[in-house]
């Protein structure tokens, strides 16, 4: 076997091995998307009921709460960025990081100081490499977030927003995550979690224009709101974590699918090149034999004379 042919064969073998790996990763990601989606669906009843309750208290009473009132002139904002722990997901992480950077820029233009909170090793690595300050970060659960994880993330954020701005608290809380639109589409977006815009929440809770009844609050509207709002934030963060996880798996699936397709194409091209090389080798051998034979024939013909 010629050197050229051997090189081609070796490359085909290595590409096929890579293809097998990416194919497996694609299938794993596909099954994880379904699982993550199921978790999103399972968490929906709680989120809907909670939204309904928040709307009921917010519209049914004239309670003023730090979490629903806008600060006179907000000077500090917290941004929570959701990324994944692992890469190999196409532009998933860079998209959400880009969205966070745009949001930060916008907030800074508005004259607010921005505290960044990050979930996921990728985002942490990005910020650390650029030596930017991270207020707090969490890693290790982005593939399958649980409600306890959401609580862990929400706790310092709620604490920061309840603190006075002068003492290091924040006035606003924004979240940047990747919305799972469909298997093919995931969009990075930012949303303001706090202070709550009750009108928006109300619209989300009852698009049919149903009128909420006048509730009796137990023990009191203030206490209910006090207990309700942190839960609401937690549930929103949980939902965002789940959507990010589903989006990440969908992005991985897509990235791995195109990697598998590319590997297949590469194998085809390499096989053609290898065939051509083999054929060239055979042709050369034949012409060498023919050339040798005719030289031999010429020589014996000469000696006969």
């Amino acid at each position, binding site marked *: 076997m010629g050197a050229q042919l051997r090189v081609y064969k070796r490359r085909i073998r290595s590409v096929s091995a890579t293809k097998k790996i990416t194919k497996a990763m694609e299938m794993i990601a596909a099954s994880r998307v379904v699982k993550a989606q199921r978790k999103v669906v399972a968490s929906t009843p709680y989120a809907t009921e909670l939204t309904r309750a928040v709307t009921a208290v917010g519209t049914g009473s004239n309670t003023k709460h730090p979490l629903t009132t806008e600060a006179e002139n907000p000077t500090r904002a917290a941004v929570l960025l959701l990324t994944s722990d692992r890469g190999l997901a196409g532009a998933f992480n860079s998209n959400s990081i880009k969205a966070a950077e745009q949001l930060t820029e916008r907030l800074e233009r508005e004259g607010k100081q921005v505290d960044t909170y990050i979930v996921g090793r990728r985002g942490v690595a990005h910020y650390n490499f650029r030596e930017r300050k991270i207020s707090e970060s969490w890693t290790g659960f982005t593939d399958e977030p649980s409600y306890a994880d959401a609580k862990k993330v929400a706790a310092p954020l709620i604490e920061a927003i309840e603190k006075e701005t002068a003492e290091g608290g924040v006035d606003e809380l924004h979240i940047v995550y990747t919305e799972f639109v469909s298997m093919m589409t995931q969009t990075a977006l930012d949303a303001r979690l706090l202070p709550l815009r009750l009108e928006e929440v109300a619209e989300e809770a009852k698009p049919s224009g149903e009128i909420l009844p006048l509730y009796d609050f137990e023990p009191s509207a203030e206490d209910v709101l006090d*207990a309700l709002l942190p839960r609401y934030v937690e549930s929103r963060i949980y939902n965002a974590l789940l959507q990010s996880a589903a989006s990440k798996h969908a992005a991985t699936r897509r990235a791995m699918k195109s990697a598998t397709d590319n590997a297949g194409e590469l194998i085809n091209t390499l096989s053609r090149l290898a065939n051509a090389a083999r054929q060239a080798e055979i042709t050369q051998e034949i012409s060498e034999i023919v050339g040798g034979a005719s030289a031999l024939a010429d020589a014996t013909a000469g000696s006969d004379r």
Partner: protein
Amino acid sequence: MAAELHVELVAADRQVWSGEATLVVARTTSGDIGVMPGHQPLLGVLESGPVTIRTSDGGTVVAAVHGGFISFADNKLSLLAEIAELSDEIDVQRTERELERAKAEDDAEAERRADVRLRAATAAR
């Protein structure tokens, strides 16, 4: 008598139980509260404790809930809890072990959680 109310018991990550009931007893921060069909709209904060649901076919469902809300309107009752477990999902022996461990480690939070679970499990028997 069409006195029934629809109950949804949901935890943060799943729906635990849903069905028709005639009476629901839960513990709010200001004491136990019983809700029967036709109750006035209510929104309350729940304490950790067992919730008893008397179903319309005469059975009883007991669940342990840890923090959450009760909301009732329009003959629909929702119990929202961060963590909720039905009594038959609770492993009594394991919970007893947890209770002992919590007592030994002086972990008030875990002790209360285990205690609520145990009470819910025994109440169903």
